């Protein structure tokens, strides 16, 4: 009752300065125009908004969640346009995706946020759109974004229907007890079948058919209705400005000039420049130098109030100081910290080395700078006899690893040697000597080089995931045999409509890390979708396998594998390596070995003739060019013993095209 009363009061206050007739309020004091192109850091000091005009009751904090390609970013673009946050032009594509890699791949890697101002039935609302990454590797970031929300827009493609990520994302929202607004997108497409999708949503998520909104984000159809639903269905945040400050850090970025920019959601109190704040996590004290909202670039404000979402700059020099999930409070006014999140758990580890050791320092600074904006990557210094000094990096998944590598190349012009990815295995040590050495009995192995021998281990453990597959039913047979081949155990199988089936399997993580998704896509003609979540560890019979070239180990290819898979994996690696290495002056034995035991072998025969037949006056210029190019190429080869291996050979070996 009290809440309702306050709402009415705010209504009255908000109505007065604006005409209630216009349903859409393009507030003239808001910066219009394509602000995305510039970063107007502090240009608007004089015209700062009074954020106290947006009390808790008029605030809605929400995310858009969707399977990849179902139109999340397009809907976000439209919402930004409708609310006047950005100018409406044809160029607004993936406005919130700022990275080159995001635009190239059409994915969101780094979540962005935007505050939208919208007048509905005469009331001015502050709608905070907290974007979420759209790939399984980044589901950790999704749950992080959701922690600052009270509701979500669940976008489903009217043609493709519910997919694995739709399911996973729905459950993330459902478990966080968020309001869910189902939106069926792409109804303009020829094969759109919104009725079918509505039925799926009803069956799987128990949401009545009449609650679905049918839209075309591309054409703008019904997008306004989505905004209205956001206001009607999503509750305002439950908090109070009169309470002491309680701010959740749900993301952070790093700016070279201003240091850490922390994205915060206020669960109580207010915050402004000059406030002394403390991090619950580090207990460190800071003075706030700037607060503001994101539109989607930073807009400084005098103050932020409970329920609002924005950013804060407070002289934090390192991203680690703005621990994601941390709670900030006022100095000498401590509060009970918010539950926070488990820190991002790397699922895939790989060694990264400079191609040339003289590049070590450049690579080091590139890594430091890139990880400032991607704190989910873990970095440990590492070194190897063969590859020199480098690092062992932990990623959220293989796509994350590829994206990171691509960003290193695109944003820092660095090319590197990456070793075979491995998942974090565990070993329960039995050898007292080793236990003493490690200081504990259970160790995590993120580098095959550190795999302890069976004799000193009582049990090996491997990480598992619970995978969700959604597929048209005609592919079930193939998919089940693929899963069995990957040592997966079926947990559930459910028809979500007449044609579509949802399967749940418990997978060993290493079986899906490299290429499971590609294999699944290829055997289902692209129709099956996949998502997974962490499911703990299970005992496994693991062994370390080396790949040798003429007896010399190839460090990039050392792998930990399940003993059932050792022969097949060994044979496969040897065969692929044979195709990836050019013939040389001597025979090359390509072997897979477990300890001293050779389990697979391929032989690359020596060149017996390699000389061009005709070489007279005419051809020599072209010929010399070719020879010189080959000489240049030699300098880029990786030498293992005396075998010269092209640098991309290992990546080619690891990137499986088809599954046998």
């Amino acid at each position: 009752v009290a809440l309702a009363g306050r709402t009415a009061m705010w209504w009255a206050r908000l109505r007065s300065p604006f005409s209630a007739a216009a349903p859409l309020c393009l507030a003239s004091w808001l910066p219009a125009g394509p602000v995305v192109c510039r970063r107007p850091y502090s240009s608007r000091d004089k015209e700062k908004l009074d954020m106290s005009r947006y009390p808790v009751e008029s605030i809605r904090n929400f995310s858009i969640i969707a399977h990849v390609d179902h139109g999340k970013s397009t809907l976000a673009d439209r919402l930004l346009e409708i609310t006047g946050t950005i100018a409406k032009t044809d160029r607004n594509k993936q406005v919130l995706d700022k990275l080159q890699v995001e635009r190239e791949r059409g994915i969101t890697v780094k979540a962005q946020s935007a505050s939208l101002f919208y007048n509905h039935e005469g009331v001015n609302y502050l709608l905070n759109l907290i974007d979420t990454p759209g790939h399984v590797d980044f589901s950790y970031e999704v749950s992080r974004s959701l922690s600052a929300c009270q509701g979500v827009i669940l976008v489903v493609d009217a043609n493709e229907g519910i997919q694995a990520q739709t399911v996973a994302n729905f459950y993330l929202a459902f478990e966080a007890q968020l309001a869910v607004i189902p939106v069926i997108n792409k109804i303009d497409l020829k094969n759109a079948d919104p009725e079918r999708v509505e039925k799926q949503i009803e069956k799987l998520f128990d949401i009545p058919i009449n609650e679905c909104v049918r839209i075309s984000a591309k054409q703008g159809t019904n997008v306004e209705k989505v905004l209205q639903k956001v206001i009607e269905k999503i509750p305002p945040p439950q908090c109070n400005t009169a309470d002491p400050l309680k701010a959740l850090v749900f993301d952070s970025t790093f700016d070279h000039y201003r240091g850490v920019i922390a994205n915060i959601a206020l669960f109580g109190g207010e915050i402004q420049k000059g406030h002394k704040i403390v991090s619950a996590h580090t207990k460190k004290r800071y003075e706030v130098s700037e607060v503001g909202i994101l539109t989607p670039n930073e807009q400084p404000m005098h103050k932020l109030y409970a329920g609002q979402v924005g950013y804060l700059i407070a002289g934090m020099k390192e991203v680690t100081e703005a621990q994601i999930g941390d709670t900030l409070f006022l100095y000498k006014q401590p509060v009970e910290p918010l539950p926070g999140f488990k820190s991002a758990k790397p699922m895939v580890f790989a060694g990264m080395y400079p191609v040339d050791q003289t590049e070590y320092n450049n690579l080091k600074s590139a890594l430091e700078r890139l990880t400032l904006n991607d704190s989910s990557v873990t970095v440990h210094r590492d070194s190897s006899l063969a590859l020199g000094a480098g690092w062992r990096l932990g990623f959220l998944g293989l796509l994350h690893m590829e994206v990171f590598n691509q960003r290193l190349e695109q944003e820092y012009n660095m090319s590197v040697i990456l070793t075979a990815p491995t998942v974090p295995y565990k070993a329960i040590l039995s050898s007292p000597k080793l236990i003493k050495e490690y200081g504990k009995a259970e160790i995590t192995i993120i580098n095959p080089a550190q795999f302890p021998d069976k004799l000193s281990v009582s049990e090996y453990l491997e990480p598992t995931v619970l995978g969700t597959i959604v597929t048209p039913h005609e592919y079930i047979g193939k998919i089940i045999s693929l899963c069995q081949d990957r040592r997966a155990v079926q947990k559930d199988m459910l028809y979500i409509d007449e044609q579509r089936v949802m399967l749940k399997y418990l997978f060993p993580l290493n079986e899906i890390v490299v290429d499971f998704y590609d294999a699944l896509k290829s055997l289902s003609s692209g129709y099956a979708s996949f998502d997974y979540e962490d499911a703990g560890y299970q005992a496994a019979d693991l062994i370390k396998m080396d790949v040798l070239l003429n007896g010399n180990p190839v460090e990039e290819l050392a792998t930990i594998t399940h003993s059932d898979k050792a022969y097949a994996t060994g044979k496969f690696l040897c065969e692929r390596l044979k195709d990836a290495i050019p013939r040389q002056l001597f025979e090359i034995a390509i072997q897979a070995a477990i300890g001293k035991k050779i389990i697979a072998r391929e032989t690359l025969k020596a060149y017996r003739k390699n000389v061009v037949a005709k070489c007279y006056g005419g051809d020599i210029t072209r010929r010399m060019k070719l020879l010189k190019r080959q000489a240049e190429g030699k300098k880029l080869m990786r030498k293992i013993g005396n075998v010269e291996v092209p640098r991309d050979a290992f990546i080619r070996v690891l990137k499986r095209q088809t599954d046998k």
Partner: protein
Amino acid sequence: LAPCPQWPYCRQRCSYCSFNTYVVPALDEAAVGACLVREARTLLRLSQVQSITSVFFGGGTPSLASPRTIAAVLEAVAGAVHLPTSAEVTLEANPTSASTSHLAGFRTAGVNRLSIGVQSLDDAELRLLGREHTAAEARGAVEAARGLFPGRTSLDLIFGLPGQNQGTWTRGLEAALELCDDHVSLYQLMLERGTALASQVWGGALPAPSQDLLADMYQAARAMLVAAGFRHYEVSNFARKGALSTHNLSYWRAEQYIGVGPGAHGRFVPRGEGSCSREARVQTLEPNAWMREVQSRGHGTRRRVVLSPLEQLEEVLALGLRTDEGITHKRWGHFSPNLSLEAVFGALGEAKDLQEQGWLVLDSSGLRCTWEGLALLDSLLPDLLCQLQRC
């Protein structure tokens, strides 16, 4: 110095050939001949050499030209510089344009060595190669040539044809050995982009021989020719009784040569312009355009690039190692007076490794491939170039 006039015309295009050749219905031979004469004069004057060591009429099919045209070019050469009677004057001939009387005409014109494009002594293989002659015609041509140019007739053979096996190749080579004079060139078929044969092989219509089969064919041929008394003096060339091709040796020894005619390449120092740098030169490819240029400015040089000392040494290396004599200390010293072969390749490095592996020899006579190394030269050269570039 060795001028090499190019006759770019053919009666038909062979299925494997990607050279700069033209099949034209009617040809103003007098005009083409006049242009060859004029360009030869211009370039010889530019080179300011005193004497000629060899002349090589290549193509195309220079035996399609009349002896009169060949004579005119040789007269022009002799008129411009000293052309000793001992100079080797080779003409490439096709079996179909090598009647005894025609060949005799070439001899009268001053030609003293003939290189005959036999390619194969099997009619099916000749059809596959798109040759216009039969095996019998090839035999007739070689016999006629040997009569007119005894000890100075060479024949060309191709191996590695689609469908060819070790047996058919060695039998063909045996037949050729019975027919041949003292010089044989053996070429492994190269599939060149844009040729009819390559598209058939790459399209899957014809089989490609395996790398191992090609190596076996080459090694078997080497053994057979050596057993028959031939010296394997260059990757693809064999000679006995000292009948080595002087002209081709001058290429491999990185001596000066002048390309005359459409698309011809040359390497010489244009001292006539006051230069003392060796240049790589290419004449205009298309015959009509080339003729217009020669008529208007005396030559059709389309591209000239000054070769740096390093580039010259790279060529010396890549070409010289093709021969059994290799690169002598004297020749290397001519191009590299300050840095000896020992200084470049004697230290620890690629050359040393290749010597230890038995592919290369560096001794008092120079740097050369071993018998085994010669067949693998293209795998050795990138390493050697790397080592050279570091000096």
